[in-house]
Each structure stands twice: as structure tokens, then as C-alpha cells.
């Protein structure tokens, strides 16, 4: 009896403690870099002496700026392309493949199992030989899309799997063309899946080193610059850049949270919440 009581009393602190440890594990490295980026002694900012020096250096360093721009470009275009292709592929798969669905699906997600290094290398050779594409941004975007497409397909498929295609039937019977049906009915109901795929693809392509490495030649991206920095010494700009990117990510998350809370943006259709709102 007394034993049980103690266990119960300890339960809550134990839970909170575990949670704290998890959060520390996740965020300590990020906090360390963040602190470094605003400290005089950026490699060991304890105790911190606040300064914007690293950011000033970053503002002067055109290499890092170009790298950021290139990474953003690769991220956004790859994400757009893979999401679009994956959406079309999933719709075809779920609507028209019938009993062949699984076969097609396996072929679609097989690129997941090709090592990234291999994919980069083979894309370089193929794009150069047959598409007359040398190592450049465009070539890198294509190769990243090959990789991201499979992830996007999996994410979108989970959303579309639950979608009732007969809603499309209803729209068409009431006079909507197939294209109109997609934009009026299908898209508003599946966009959270597309959005999720876009975000994941963006992050993967933005951070990708292996694939881009082979296809970009001398064009810098953030991961390649950071990787290079390892060999030539970590510069203060890198600290500023890392924490800058983190701040942007957290800001975006924060804005989305506020928008969702106020109801300005809804992630898909939430029957239960709406029902309870009446």
C-alpha cells in the first residue's frame, strides 16, 4: 500500500524528468551553436559575451550567401517537382491501376533503396551522356527529385488512400470537368498531404550533400560549404548561418501554430473538432 503510494507520487516527476532529458538531448547542440553565433568566442561561448560579429562576417561573405541561395533553389524546385509528380503518380495508382497497384507502387518506391552516392554518380553520368547536362543546378534538381519523389509518393499515398474518389464522381455528375473537379474538390481535401510531402522534400533536398555533390561541380550549396569548412577550419560565418536557418525554421513553425490556433489555416478537414464546435 505504502509502496504503491510512493510509486504513484514518483510517477509525475519521473515523467517530467524523462521529458526534460529528451528535450535537452534534442536541443542542446542547437542551443550551443546559437549561443556561439552571438558570442565573441564562438567556439566556446561559456560564459557568453554577446556580439553580432559572426553575423557581420556572414553578411560580408558572398560564398555563404550564394550557397544559401543555391540550396534554397534546389530545395524549393525539387520539392515542387517531386510533389507534383508524386501527386499525379498516386492518383493514377489509386484510381486506375486496379489489381496492379502493388506492382506499380514497388517500382515507384524502389529508388528509396538506391544509395544516395550511387544515385548522384549515376545521375551525373546519365545526365551528361544523354541529356547533355553538365554539372549544374538543374541537373542537381533532377537527381534530387528522383530521390525525393519516392518519399513524396509515400506521404501523399497515405493521405489519398483515405480519400473517397466517389466525391469526384459527384462533382463530375454535377457538371465539373475533371480539371475543375481536381481544384474544387480533390485538392482542398488532400492538400495537407501535398503540403507535408513538399516540406519533407524541401528539407531533404535543402540538406542534401551526396547527390548534389556529384552534380554541382563548383557550384556551392550550404551542405557542401559546411562540409568544406570541416577541412579548412570552422569559420564564425557557419555559426551565424546555422543559427540563422534555425531561427527561420522556428519562426515559420511559430507562425503556423498561431494561424492554426486562430483558425485562419486548417490542416485538412477535421470533422470531430467542427462537430464539437456547434
Amino acid at each position, binding site marked *: 500500500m505504502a509502496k504503491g503510494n510512493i510509486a504513484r507520487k514518483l510517477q509525475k516527476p519521473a515523467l517530467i524528468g524523462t521529458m526534460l532529458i529528451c528535450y535537452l538531448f534534442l536541443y542542446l547542440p542547437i542551443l550551443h551553436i546559437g549561443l556561439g553565433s552571438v558570442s565573441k568566442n564562438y567556439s566556446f561561448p561559456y560564459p557568453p559575451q554577446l556580439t553580432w560579429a559572426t553575423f557581420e562576417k556572414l553578411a560580408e561573405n558572398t560564398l555563404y550567401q550564394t550557397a544559401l541561395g543555391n540550396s534554397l533553389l534546389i530545395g524549393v524546385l525539387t520539392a515542387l517537382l517531386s510533389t507534383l509528380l508524386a501527386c499525379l503518380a498516386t492518383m493514377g495508382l489509386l484510381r486506375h491501376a486496379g489489381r496492379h497497384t502493388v506492382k506499380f507502387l514497388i517500382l515507384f518506391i524502389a529508388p528509396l533503396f538506391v544509395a544516395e552516392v550511387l544515385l548522384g554518380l549515376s545521375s551525373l553520368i546519365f545526365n551528361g551522356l544523354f541529356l547533355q547536362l553538365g554539372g549544374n543546378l538543374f541537373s542537381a534538381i533532377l537527381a534530387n527529385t528522383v530521390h525525393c519523389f519516392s518519399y513524396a509518393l509515400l506521404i501523399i499515398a497515405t493521405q489519398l488512400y483515405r480519400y473517397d474518389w466517389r466525391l469526384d464522381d*459527384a462533382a*463530375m455528375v*454535377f457538371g*465539373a*470537368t475533371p480539371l475543375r473537379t481536381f481544384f474544387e474538390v480533390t485538392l482542398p481535401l488532400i492538400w495537407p498531404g501535398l503540403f507535408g510531402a513538399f516540406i519533407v522534400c524541401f528539407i531533404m533536398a535543402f540538406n542534401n550533400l551526396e547527390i548534389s555533390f556529384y552534380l554541382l561541380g563548383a557550384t556551392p550549396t550550404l551542405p557542401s560549404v559546411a562540409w568544406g569548412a570541416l577541412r579548412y577550419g570552422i569559420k564564425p560565418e557557419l555559426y551565424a548561418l546555422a543559427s540563422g536557418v534555425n531561427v527561420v525554421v522556428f519562426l515559420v513553425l511559430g507562425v503556423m501554430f498561431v494561424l492554426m490556433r486562430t483558425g485562419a489555416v486548417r490542416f485538412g478537414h477535421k470533422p470531430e473538432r467542427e462537430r464539437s464546435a456547434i
Partner: protein
Amino acid sequence: MYISLQGISKQYASVWAIDRVNMAIAKQEFVSLLGPSGSGKTTLLRVIAGLEKPTEGRVLIDGQDVTELPPHKRGVAMVFQEFLLFPHRTVRENLAFPLRMMKMPKAEMDERIDWALGILSLQGLDGRYPNQLSGGQQQRVALGRGLVGRPKVLLLDEPLANLDRELRQEMEVEIRRYQMKLGIPFIYVTHNQEEALSMSDRIAVVNKGHVEDFAERTTLYDKPKTAFIAQFVGRSNKFEGKVTAADGGSCTIDAGGLSLTASGNGGLKPGDAAFAFVKNEKVALAPEGFVGEDNSLPCTVRDVILRGAYAEYLLETSDGLGLVASRPRSGEGPSIGHAVVAHWASGDVDLYPVKPDLGLRR
């Protein structure tokens, strides 16, 4: 004819969901497709709507061959078995959908929507989302979405299945009223014979993908063309036996020791296996000892089931044969345990040859 289905068949993998269906429907007509679950009713509607391409045959609407036309060019509307309201749209937006696709001016659109909300008693609900409505309300919105656009044909797939009896009967009357008012054909799918009988001009009985008969509702009820219709429409006593004697005017059947006389022979010869059906309400009851009509059978009342205006008497012969008689409840009927004589005219016996069941076409 306004709508004409010519030799429509639809094959899914190995089964033929509908099999060589021919129907012609006039402009002002209310037609029901009546059949058991899985008989192909929904498939036939989807073919008419253009959501399914027939494997064989042609569909004509208003003189135009629409077989190759996609659904959005056909000008038909459908009330789906599963409603299929757009979940991200309010009631008003759902009702506006067909009108927007027609590019109707805003003012006229609002007028139409308000009309639909009015006739379907949905006022005050127009801002709600479908998942904030009860099943019955959703069904009415689905019906409204079918009506607002004044389509060339309205296809209704069991639209009243989710309503309680009172609301259903109310809606039956309403639906029939809109059909007459709009002057367009309604094709109404149901597996409920009462619904079909109460609303339709003509009824097509669908069985295993083919149309058994397409006839006026009274004809269908009074003179069922096939054994399937006799069994499916109305409530009947069914007997199975062998023809012992048949001439031009009458026919005698031996059904497990019970001798039945029927007027007309249904094309049967002595020795043929036959089904005989007698509608429950054609079975009259008389006191013990009564002899007279063509068919009379001494029975005991096993149970009495009250159905409001009439009562169903569950009878049993001394051989243990069961029988049901529906009688209006006027005065005192026989009570449980009483001996009675069940009797019916030979003209009320419907005879059909026993045919092997071929099942679905494969």
C-alpha cells in the same frame, strides 16, 4: 421516348453486373428500379450518369446518343446512396455547386438555393458543414443538390434509406410532388417495394443484372410476370408442386398433398414442376365447416400479428403447412387457437414454371 437504354450490359472482371437491359422512359415519368441488394441497380444508374461506360449497348437522353459523353456533359444529376456531400463545403455551397458549374448568375443562384432550402426544410442549416448534420439532414441536402440544377434526369439511389418511417413517408410524397412540378423523369432506385409502389408510374424489377419486367405499378402488383416478381413484390404464400391436370381454362397442382386450383394454366402441362403464389390479402377466412370457393383449406390460427389497419393471421394446416392471411381489422377476427377455413379464388393463384436458376451471366 425521352430516355432510352438499348441493350446495356456492364462487365466487371468476370461478372456481368447488368445484362442486356432495355428500357424506354418518357419525359414526365417516375420510374423505380426495384431489386434486391447486388442486383445491379446502382451500376445501371452510374451507366446512365456516365460514371461507368457500358460494355455493350447505348444510352440515349432526349434524342441524343450520350454513350460516349463524359458525365459533366450529360446534364443529369444524381442523389448518391452514400450522399457524397462535399465535406469542405457548407450546405449552401454544396447546393450552389451544380449552379456554379452552369455559370448561373448570382441572384438567380441564391433564389434557387433558397427554394431548395425551403422545400427541404433546411432553413437555418445553410452555414453548416455536412458532418454537422444528422443523417436525415444530409440526405435532404443531397436531394436538394440534385434538384437545384433542374437536370434533364434525376437519378436517385435509395435516397430515403436513412430516414425514419415518418419522415420517409413525408419525403415520398414530396419527391413525387417535385417530380411532377419539374416535369423531368426521375429514376429511383430502391429495394423497398412499398417505396416503389407508392411513388412510381412504372417499376422495373431488377434481378441479377437483368430487368424481369418493366410495367405499370398496378400491373406489376396484380399480374406479376415472373415467379421472382411474385415473390419480391407484395407478400405472398408460396407453394411448390407438380401439375396434375391442365386444360385451357384451369389447372390443378399438387403441392405436398394440398390440391390447388388456378384459373389459366400459365403454359404448363401435367407433370411440370410449378410455383404457385397467393397474395396474403387474397386469402379470406371463414368459420369452421365452410365449403364453397375453388380453394378452401381448414386451418388453425397459430398467431395474430397486428399491423394497424389490418392483421396478419399465421395459419397452420393439420399437415403442418404454414399460411398467412392479411385481413382488414373490422369487428372481431378469429383469435389464436381457433379453427378456421382459409379460402381463395382460383383467379388469385399465380402460376409459374420452375426454372433452373442461371445466376449471373459470366
